[in-house]
């Protein structure tokens, strides 16, 4: 023992080799990469909006003519009006549905509330494109339910090819956002406030109306701004239902002017994009004001420790049936019928299902090299791109939260900025960036431009999954390593990043799903050879291949379902957003 004591107290060790020089290149490198990534689509858009001819032409001159031209473009006022009506209607529908669902599923003794709540969330996992096709398959002009209705009644009371019809689809698919925010607010609300009201004699519905609902107001208001922003950025629903009916919104305007038109007017498109960017920046700023912090995505839901549920009494079963019908009509039917459509050659209420069952759609899909390649590309973009993006986000997170990097606050800001960049604007922006930058031509026709664009768009999402966990890791753990002789990078590698593994897995899963369902940015950027599922879906849709659309959509739904289930079962992560 005494020998040990002498040895432990022996001559001080030589100091460890100092690697402090490594810190600066890693930190500056990451910061620079992030800055380039975020600025790449923005600068070309802003630049294009103030020059008089396409970016790739010589002899450009600075001008404000684009703004004047946009203002005087015939019908542009109507486009803005449509955009506003669509977003506002969507928000109202989403907020009403989401709040009702949160109260009914979260706070009452309704039967099977948990299952209904889970089903209610489903639209959030899927891309709006797939949901649109689902709704089309059920409620479209030749949809399953439309035909069933027609066989009994006269013309259906719904029409998806109108602003209210589109807003209904969008509202249903965004209601889970309001639901999630209300639920997490309800869990932190002190149940004794409600109990006090009930003890003092207020009935169930009076308590709900006077106490519970007002307490939810901050959550409702915040998610309303969030949903308004998302609705503003939505491309799929207006593209599928609005364009055929001649209803144009900002996103579809950008799409037709920027890429899809015969003679794209870049000045006009860039100016509209800049306008949209400004509006969304304002909305994101408003979100920050409302919430007091800058999270746009709730990625890890808290544990729901539910206060005592309200008794619905005699209304319990009628309300349950109403909710079940709603879930069946808006979640189960669109997704279910779309999947069934994938496995049939033809779907109609007049024809028995068994007679039309076939795998023909899938065999045809994979015979066509474009579509097989699209599925494969989607996998590569999601798996490899998700991993690269996770690595970048992990680096940003440790620099922002665990370093003395001089520009860590600006880096934080830049990393979260893509929240304010709509997918269509990012798409247009990267499209211009490729045209502008000679070096980028190499990756133009590859899936790597998609990886780059998707990574840029989803940095905030991934960051939102990683940062809270990182902040829970005690700073003493990395300080201990530093004092013992590890430089910053060794500390990150050996201590912080291993401790963050669960958060990184969650981040990767979220990014995999997000990349897998992404279409908005992709349709501006894909080229022959770099199709992904989203672009292939639109391509098939335009060709009128309903069966193949359904098959491809079913693949996306299946893969995402497996991912979500696996993430929940294995890691216990709740993935929202």
């Amino acid at each position, binding site marked *: *023992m*005494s020998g*040990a*004591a002498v*040895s*432990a*107290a*022996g*001559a*001080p*060790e*030589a*100091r*460890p*080799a*100092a690697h*402090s020089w490594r810190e600066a290149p890693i930190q500056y490198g990451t910061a620079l990469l992030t800055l380039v990534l975020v600025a790449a689509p923005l600068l070309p858009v802003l630049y294009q909006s103030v020059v008089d001819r396409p970016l790739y032409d010589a002899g450009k001159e600075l001008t404000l003519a684009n703004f004047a031209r946009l203002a005087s473009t015939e019908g542009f006022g109507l486009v803005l009006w449509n955009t506003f009506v669509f977003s506002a209607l969507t928000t109202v529908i989403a907020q009403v549905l989401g709040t009702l669902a949160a109260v009914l599923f979260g706070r009452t003794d309704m039967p099977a509330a948990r299952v209904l709540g889970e089903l209610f969330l489903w639209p959030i996992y899927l891309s709006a494109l797939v949901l649109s096709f689902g709704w089309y398959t059920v409620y479209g002009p030749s949809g399953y339910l439309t035909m069933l209705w027609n066989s009994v009644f006269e013309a259906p009371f719904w029409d998806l090819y109108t602003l209210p019809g589109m807003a209904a689809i969008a509202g249903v698919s965004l209601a889970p956002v309001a639901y999630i925010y209300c639920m997490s607010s309800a869990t932190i609300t002190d149940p004794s406030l409600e109990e006090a009201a009930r003890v003092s004699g207020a009935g169930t519905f009076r308590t709900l109306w006077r106490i519970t609902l007002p307490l939810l107001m901050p959550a409702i208001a915040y998610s309303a701004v969030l949903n308004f922003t998302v609705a503003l950025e939505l491309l799929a629903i207006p593209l599928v239902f609005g364009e055929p009916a001649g209803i144009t919104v900002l996103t579809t305007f950008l799409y037709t002017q920027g890429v899809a038109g015969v003679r794209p007017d870049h000045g006009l498109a860039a100016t509209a994009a800049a306008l949209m960017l400004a509006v969304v920046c304002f909305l994101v700023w408003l979100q920050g004001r409302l919430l007091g912090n800058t999270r746009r995505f709730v990625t890890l839901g808290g544990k729901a420790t539910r206060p005592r549920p309200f008794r619905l009494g005699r209304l319990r079963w009628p309300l349950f049936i109403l909710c079940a019908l709603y879930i069946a009509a808006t979640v189960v039917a669109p997704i279910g019928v779309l999947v069934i459509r994938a496995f049939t050659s033809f779907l109609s209420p007049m024809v028995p299902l068994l007679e039309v069952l076939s795998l023909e759609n899938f065999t045809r899909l994979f015979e066509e090299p474009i579509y097989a390649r699209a599925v494969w590309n989607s996998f590569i973009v999601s798996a490899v791109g998700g991993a690269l993006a996770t690595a970048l986000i992990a680096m940003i997170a440790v620099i922002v939260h665990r370093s003395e990097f001089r520009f860590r606050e600006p880096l934080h800001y830049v990393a979260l900025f893509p929240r304010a960049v709509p997918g269509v604007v990012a798409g247009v922006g990267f499209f211009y960036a490729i045209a502008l930058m000679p070096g980028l031509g190499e990756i133009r026709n590859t899936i790597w431009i998609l990886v780059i664009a998707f990574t840029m768009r989803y940095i905030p999402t991934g960051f939102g999954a990683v940062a809270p966990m990182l902040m829970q890791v*005690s700073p*003493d*753990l990395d*300080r*201990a*390593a*530093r*004092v*013992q*002789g*590890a*430089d910053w990078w*060794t500390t990150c590698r*050996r*201590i912080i990043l*291993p*401790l963050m593994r669960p958060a990184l897995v969650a981040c990767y899963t979220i990014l995999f799903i997000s990349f897998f369902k992404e279409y908005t940015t992709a349709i501006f950027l894909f080229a022959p050879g770099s199709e992904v599922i989203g672009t292939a879906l639109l391509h098939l849709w335009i060709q009128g291949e309903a069966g193949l659309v359904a098959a491809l959509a079913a693949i996306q739904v299946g893969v995402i379902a497996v991912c979500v289930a696996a993430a929940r079962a294995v890691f216990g992560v709740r993935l929202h957003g």
Partner: protein
Amino acid sequence: MAELVIENLTKRFGEVVAVDSVSIHVADGEFVTLLGPSGCGKSTTLAAVAGLDRPDGGRISVGGTVYFDERTGTFLPPEARNCGLVFQSYALWPHMTVFDNVVFPLTLRKVPSAERKRRVEEVLALVEMEPYADRYPHQLSGGQQQRVALARTLVYRPAILLLDEPLSNLDAKLRDRARTWLAELRTRLGLTTIYVTHDQIEALSLSDRIVVMNGGRIAQIGTPQDIYERPADPFVADFIGTTNFLPGRVVGAPDGGQALIELEDGQRVAVQVERRTAAPGSRVTLAYRPEQIGVVAEGEAAPDGAGSVVTARVISRAYVGGRWQVGLDLGGGPLRLETARPPSGEQVRLWLPAAGGILFQGSTDVSSE
């Protein structure tokens, strides 16, 4: 092992001056404790020595190596200082076993693997944690974690050892044992050590010298006996041990090393004055440790020797197991002491030895803090 010199160390957090021009000289092999209430700047000082925070001014050097010098702009990052720091939270890495935790600093120093293994075993034996090498931190008790944290620090033979409230997360019984164990270990190792705590018993029993800090400044530096018996100001007297404060006024010039103090109610107390001057008429505060105050039963003569007998009113009495805690009012000021028997009447007579009282200039109101 080396001496630590801190000169005029200053650290601000925004408007707040957390450490205000602190200078401490710790000799080679000395064990010095930074003692003070939370927010007094002791942990900030420790963090500055370890390099976790960059100070705003001053100079820190250990055995000739300058860690920090504001004038020359020198700032060694923590990894280049070769300090050993044991955290209050222990900061054991939860994803590594005890062995991996302890071997980490040796791996960083590129120690050959055979020697690494030998030294980890050696240091784990030193802290009596050898059988637990394959456990993970969460499988250990608080006391065991603390030993591993210490082993992880000792294994690379740091130039100085910094301990940040290492016992504060242990429960009371375990803390007593850990303190005894730490005291043994410290004599065996002889490392230059800075120990931060707010616990006076740890400070008094472990240290060669104690630095009492208050509001970012040093209130007193001295041996444990110095600090306890001759506190420099009412704050130190109040912070170390229990102290009764009696406000009063000097009446009559010091005579034969004694000054006469008149309490608020007119009773007079004689106190020995050493270096402190007590100008007649000036307001002063008398401080007594409870154990220095004696109770004189009715009709009994005062003990021999210099001192005074005063009468105090009984306000409260409480049985605390074996003894009675008595609350008194003496000249309008509160006074507490412990007695074997409860006071019988409304009044008690107290014996205040002249050598036991400490005189502070001015009126102070530390007891209400």
